[in-house]
């Protein structure tokens, strides 16, 4: 379990307008999460599935004595579960006072990117993805989708409430 130090905001400002992103991969796609929103990155050991829960919720985790809701980014993006049963990584997020763990295939390095260079979503991008993406960064060898953390965590739960 490695912890990523959040940069004091003062430093970032001083350097430039650059923003830092924690990169993750899901089904081969590179995605970036604003580092300010990421609390930590951890390996998922034991997960309790929640019967009757919305599909996006993979289960509940015990993260250092705290119960964390695990959200599958794959399912959130409308992708099927990966068949691999290897070690699962999660990105710890916080939204409205609640702790979430975003399950991803892998966590990569932290990238510094200039927000001005971000391009809008391609018009023909999948509807489901457009809602979760703030834009696209062109990296040298691949594209990075900047995830909107709030949108990722704002999925329907009321469906079954009625």
């Amino acid at each position, binding site marked *: 379990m490695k912890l990523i130090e959040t940069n004091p905001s003062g430093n970032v400002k001083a350097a430039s307008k650059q923003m830092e992103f924690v990169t993750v991969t899901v089904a081969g796609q590179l995605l970036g999460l604003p580092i300010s929103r990421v609390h930590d990155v951890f390996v998922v050991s*034991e*997960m*309790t*599935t*929640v*019967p*009757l*829960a*919305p599909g996006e*919720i993979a*289960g*509940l*985790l*015990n993260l250092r*004595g705290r*119960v964390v*809701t695990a*959200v599958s980014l794959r399912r959130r993006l409308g992708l099927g579960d990966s068949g691999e049963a290897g070690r699962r990584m999660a990105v710890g997020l916080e939204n*409205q006072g*609640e702790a*979430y763990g975003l399950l991803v295939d892998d966590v990569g390095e932290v990238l510094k990117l200039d927000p001005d260079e971000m391009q809008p979503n391609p018009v023909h991008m999948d509807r489901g993805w457009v809602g979760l993406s703030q834009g696209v960064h062109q990296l040298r060898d691949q594209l990075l989708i900047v995830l909107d953390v709030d949108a990722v965590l704002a*999925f329907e*739960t*009321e469906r*079954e*409430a009625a």
Partner: protein
Amino acid sequence: MDDLLLEFLTETNEHLETVDVEMVRFEQDPNNEAILSNIFRLVHTIKGTCGFLGLPRLEALAHAAETLMGKFRDGMPVTTPAVSLILSTLDRIKEILGELERQGAEPAGSDGDLIALLDKMATQEPPAPEATPTPKPVQSSGSTVFQVLERELKPGEVSLDELERAFQEAPGPEKAVTAGTLTYQILERPLKPGEVSLDELERAFREAPGPVPLVIEKLEEQAPSQKSVATASPAAPPKKNAETSEGGDGGEGISGKVQTIRVNVDTLEHLMTMVSELVLTRNQLLEIARRSSEDHGYKVPLQRLSQVTAELQDGVMKTRMQPIGNAWQKLPRVVRDLSNELSKKIELVMQGADTELDRQVLEVIKDPLTHMVRNSADHGIENPADRKAAGKPEKGTIRLNAYHEGGSITIEIADDGKGLNFAAIRKKAAERGIAGDAELERMSDAQVAKFIFHPGFSTAAKVTSVSGRGVGMDVVKTNIELIGGTVDIRSEQGRGTTFTIKIPLTLAIVAALIVSSKDQRFAIPQVAVSELVRVSPTSEHSIERINGTPILRLRDRLLPIVPLSKVMGLSGNEDANHGFVVVTQVAHQRFGILVDGVFHTEEIVVKPMSSKLRHIQLFSGNTILGDGAVVLIIDPNGLARMVGSESDRNEFQNDAGPEQTVVAADELTSLLVFRGGGESLKAVPLSLVTRLEDIEASTIEWSSGRPVVQYRGRLMPLVSCDEELTIKREGMQSLLVFSDGDVSMGLAVAEIVDIVEDKLDIELLAERSDLVGSAVVRGRTTEIVNVAHYLPMVLETWSRKERKGGPDRSLLLVDSSTFFRDMLVPVLKASGYRVQTASTAQEAVRLLSNGLHVDVVVTDLELSGHSGFALVASLRADPHHSTTPVIGLTVKPDPQQIALARKLRISEIVSKIDRRGLLSALAELNGTLEEAA
């Protein structure tokens, strides 16, 4: 906002609340000086502090109120308008305080209106000179010694007031000195072990011989934390003043409000979280210790740690506990205002105000309680004229009662008003389309009463200023259920309504049973679990199925079984027969949760569900177990609701307790409910059914167009239960098998729904011969099938047999139950009797005295109104009928009945539901009759 102001706000708000309550008390008991002094002191304090902090508006208001109260003390009569005025002044003060809290400064504005009124009131009547025998106690409010120890008393300790009283009453040193030394003492922190309270110190000093006044001076200097609120006047006349009266009601009165050391709630919450974590860690350690067999010498310290943790947990929990009286504090004022507003006379009685419960729980129920009391006052209690007309005392009573019961706390809100208007509720429910007319008509009042918990349900003819404010009853119910509580309502027309709220003591830590289902563990709160039953197909307890619905026979009662794996959607295999049944009781519903395994009971720290999962009503929260696994906590209420809504809620046993079942046994009939071709439910008394079978449709043979099936080595004819239903040609066909001797018949039904025990009232007598009539079974209209109709249809043998045994005799059947008469008549007729019926003993006697000749009398021995024995006795007394054979029917024969029957020469006593027994008894009689002939 500076700390001083903040402190002032908290303190003043607290004082104001007390004053509110005390004011109402004072109005009722204007001669109680203790109350007045207390109010006076509090208002004076407020005034003083306001002046000190430079809050002119507040100060002026408090001053004016104080002046008026001073008049009261001087003997001015206490009137309702005066009290109302003071109360509205208090409200204004609260308003200003609210503004002050928000903006940090006193809002602009003038209170000239109120002050003028107060002044007018104060000058209105000249103070009656010496109106009361009590001389003015002067400004020596120092004499109202209200001493509070800032923590709970430990066993063996005596409250300060009692001490003081004992001291006062004890013969002691010169009285003058005593009066002078009465100071209000508060130590601003809890006592440390070994420390002595100031009062005790003081007492020791006083009792010690010495130059008393001087010593006290010194003591005060020595104790820097000692605060003297009231100035002691050395000139105070040593007389029987406030203390004595206070001593009288000190138990329930002013001293009932225990002040506490002020700790920030956040600090407590944090402490609680830390303890929760500690409990978890301890559980983890215990788990490790349990797994390793070796003792590395840490087991003893671990045990100790465990114990200390438990104690710490208890202690911290206690800090969260608050007397329910805190939630009731506003109620006297509410009731007072309401009774004035509605011109009703209402008395509020509060019992068990010191019952403690968790702060969090208290917060949640505060508003619902207020609302319910408001409701009782507004809708429940009638106005004095109506009450008088109804023969009730003019003054209505609202009674609040709280007490501990097991792991939960019960709060009752009862009024002696007019009760719920069931007719109006029915009408409203129909209007709002919550239930159909027919359905409503058949519902019991208790069921109808539950409608008031429906959202937006109000039967108030007009919306008064009282009703329609704040929350509705549905919110009340939701709030209470949110914390795992239940609300029940009991109402009697003209006698009043009682709401019973049951809530858990605490929400944070609960004992839970850890169970497993399909490799996943769940926690079930222990409070809801009443027992555990191991089930397997071979053991004494095995799960049976009615049309696939699992049922467990438990001590002769049918318990609906909910397989946990099924509701969780975990399993594909629904025919689980092994495992444990967790018998769960939720309010009046009892059901069994079928799980695969049961582990142990553990104290779990309830953590709230994530907002994304909160809509799943099956879970009330989650927790981390000793081994670090996250486990979901099952909400039995949610489970009951969920399963209940899937089918009909009524299918759950309405568990009114076994004793009631016994009492009502003679009224209850076990019915097998099934469905035919149509939509409607049909039922047949279970006692008539021999077996239930599911057969392969392919085994049905059709001989000359009639369906038959080989059954137990014989051919059994089948008949469809109604025209709409065709007997299946493939798949499984459900049958009800009726047998008589060695002939059987199979009644094909679409689906077997349930077995219910219910009172049978045949309400509509059908024109059709295949039905006895319709009845309401578990709140639903059900057709009661006439089995006798089918028998001749399929069984020539049957009819032949009947003819053979047909003795052509007349029979009088006396039974008060229409249902039994209707059931038995065809059977008896089929056996060749000419049947006459009577529903009462009187009717039977009338028939017989009119010259009806009968060969046999069959009578229920438990006739309503008139005992069957009395009927037989009168028969015996009549020479015409002194030898007429009589067969008695009873629900359960007891020795007393048998003895009495013998005396009255009753030939036989047969169980009421034993149709075959009756027929064989009759056959036997025939034999003897023929012999006699």
